[in-house]
């Protein structure tokens, strides 16, 4: 018996949605089987996961605020990555670009936070972080355009360069190093949240909405319009489909690649500036893995800007909710979220395959 993979006619939206939903449900069922095997009640676990433990929680507003803090960098980074992915430039360097953005934003805050007005410091932090992260990303873009190097490898390796720069800053006490507290004999990052922080809007008695949330939504809308309704956005998708076609159509492919890579990386730098300006302190774990998770989000959302926000929101529920649920069960650690995320990704990709193709049995004699 032999099988053939045959391209499917376009399925209607509801059918596709159902297939993705089925994939997610299947992943949750697999997760439930694992939970049962280690003696955890999956229904209670999932209940806590999807409510993020907010039911009957006196400080539930804190959960929502922490949730948004996790969501913002991930959403912006995913949108930024999708820009490059659309052009088939595999920017795996989100982590490194985020770190470079964080370091430069932190530097501005520490250097000028005390002397400049807060709003100016924040604007400077954003601009400088975007520039530095953009240029850091541009290195891999330049090498690809000039020498045809593999951008996947280049951006990947540059993550580790950035990470070790951050470690070096975090561990080296020296006169030039304004990132570390002078009074502590062990290295500890300086906290500047009292002098520099993004403003928040109070909603209700206790919940505070960070202004970055609104900015992120605006960025999302701008990128959506940029990709769908501008000439530059069109160029990106043409190059993504076929660089050769773009060239014959008279597009300056190299310039467009560099421009888009810079935009992608600098948006990640902006996400980093938002994060640093909210946290008010650096750390060696400042990225919270958004450079990696963002790749998953961008793919699951099929590079669709609107979907990215939805998927990022759901992934954050999964991550934050898993922490809360795992806190209750001694058998489950926080890594369970990563595993579940992996299963969901695999099954959604499988569903994606079956949406686009069908498998037919080839009968004998045909």
């Amino acid at each position, binding site marked *: 018996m032999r099988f053939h993979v045959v391209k499917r006619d376009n399925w209607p939206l509801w059918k596709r949605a159902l297939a993705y939903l089925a994939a997610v449900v299947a992943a949750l069922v697999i997760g439930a089987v694992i939970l*049962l095997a280690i003696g955890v009640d999956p*229904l*209670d676990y999932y209940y806590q996961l999807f409510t993020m433990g907010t039911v009957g929680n006196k400080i539930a507003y804190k959960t929502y605020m922490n949730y948004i803090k996790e969501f913002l960098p991930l959403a912006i980074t995913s949108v930024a990555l999708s820009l490059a992915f659309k052009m088939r430039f595999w920017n795996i360097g989100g982590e490194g670009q985020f770190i470079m953005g964080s370091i430069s934003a932190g530097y501005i805050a520490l250097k000028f936070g005390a002397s400049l007005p807060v709003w100016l410091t924040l604007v400077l932090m954003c601009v400088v972080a975007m520039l530095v992260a953009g240029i850091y990303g541009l290195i891999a873009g330049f090498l690809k355009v000039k020498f045809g190097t593999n951008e996947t490898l280049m951006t990947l390796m540059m993550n580790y360069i950035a990470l070790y720069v951050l470690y070096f800053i975090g561990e080296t006490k020296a006169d030039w190093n304004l990132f570390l507290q002078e009074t502590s004999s062990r290295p500890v990052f300086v*906290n500047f949240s009292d002098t520099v922080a993004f403003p928040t809007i109070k909603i209700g008695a206790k919940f505070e909405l960070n202004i970055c949330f609104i900015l992120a939504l605006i960025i999302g809308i701008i990128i959506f319009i940029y990709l769908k309704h501008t000439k530059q956005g069109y160029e990106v998708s043409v190059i993504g489909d076929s660089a050769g076609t773009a060239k014959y159509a008279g597009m300056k492919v190299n310039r467009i690649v560099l421009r888009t890579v810079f935009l992608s990386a600098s948006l990640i730098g902006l996400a980093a500036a938002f994060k640093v300006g909210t946290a008010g302190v650096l750390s060696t774990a400042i990225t919270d893995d958004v450079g990696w998770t963002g790749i998953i989000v961008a793919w699951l959302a099929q590079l669709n800007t609107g979907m990215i926000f939805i998927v990022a929101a759901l992934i954050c529920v999964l991550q934050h909710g898993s922490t809360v649920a795992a806190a209750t069960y*001694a058998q489950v650690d926080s890594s369970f979220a990563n595993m579940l995320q992996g299963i969901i990704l695999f099954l959604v990709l499988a569903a994606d395959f079956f949406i686009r193709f069908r498998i037919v049995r080839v009968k004998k004699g045909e």
Partner: protein
Amino acid sequence: MKKFIALFLAALMLLSFAACGDTDTDTSDAASTGESSSAEKAEFKVGAIYINSKNDTAGYTFAHHSGITSAMKQLGLNVDTQLFIVDEVPEDPEQVRAAVDTLVGKGVNIIFGISFGYIDALEAAAKEYPDVIFSHATGYKSNETNFNNYFGRAYQARYLAGIAAGLKSLQTGNNNIGYVAAYGTEYAETASGINGFALGVQAVNPNATVYVKKLNAWADEVNESAFAKELISSYNCGIITQHCDSAQPQIAAQDANIFGCGYNSDMTADAPKAHLTAAIWHWDVYYKTAMEAAMSCGTADKFVSTMGTPAYYGGLKENFVDVSPLSENCAPNTDTAIKAVRELIISGEWDVFSGVKLTITAEGTVTKADAALVDNAGNEIVAAGGASVADGVITGTMNYYVAGVVEA
């Protein structure tokens, strides 16, 4: 497609049945333990923030987790229902604060944070949640109400392990001792451990040299093994000790047919032919003390005054640190010598970093004599006959090696 959906529905139904069965047993468990503990105890909830997984089977997080669960069992608390843990929390203030919020949301009374880098986040959290007690391992910050820190005099246990190593070096005639350390003089924690061990060695064998090789990381299994091998081959070390997470240096010592002293847990099982004894922690000693204080102090703001000090610093006396049972590999009279020195430390008669030096013979007899404590650059740290350096030096500012220590 229909078949798929049918399959999922069937699976879901099966699972929910199984889940129901599970819930039933859970509630009956809780009921039975509820009967055995008093009402006040049953209300008490413990929170913890770990740097690694709570399911670890060795290493730093494992040591703390074992300590917390053991202390809870000793106090009759139910680990399944009264302990809440957020694990794999990196030293990122935002993530630590989020973990604190999660635990406070669960209604915990006390939160233990085990990693040094949690320090500022816990300090801020203690201010934000005055009704909750915060207790920070290895830190140095505290307040007068609901925030303390805790650590142990590991250097005392290191000294005892050093005696075992010194006696072994006399027996084998090899004066070179290797020390695989996470860090060196950068951290008082590692420096005091190295110095404590070296002084113990020298009390027995004044000709011994301790070669320190730094990993520049708290845990790095590959290099823990590689550095031990290098100390053995390049520095001809006959004994390997360590300040790092895994038993790799001990395994390397066994492979080279030499001896070693572990750290954190008894590593005799990992390297039965090489291991002498390990400097170990009994974290449950502190956790029990802290939980008892937290349950008896009434309100969170009285925790620090109930503990008596904002910085708990237990040693051999409190049984917070010790050496693991001596293995058969130890030289004769090791037990006698260690017992005698332990007595001196517990009684308060003598301590490691003082101007009084112990001399221990191969027969295990211990004699005291005034002698200055000198660093390896020749600077006098404590004059002959002087009192021990302050605790603040041992935990915070010790940034030198004593004479006889060489960085490899």
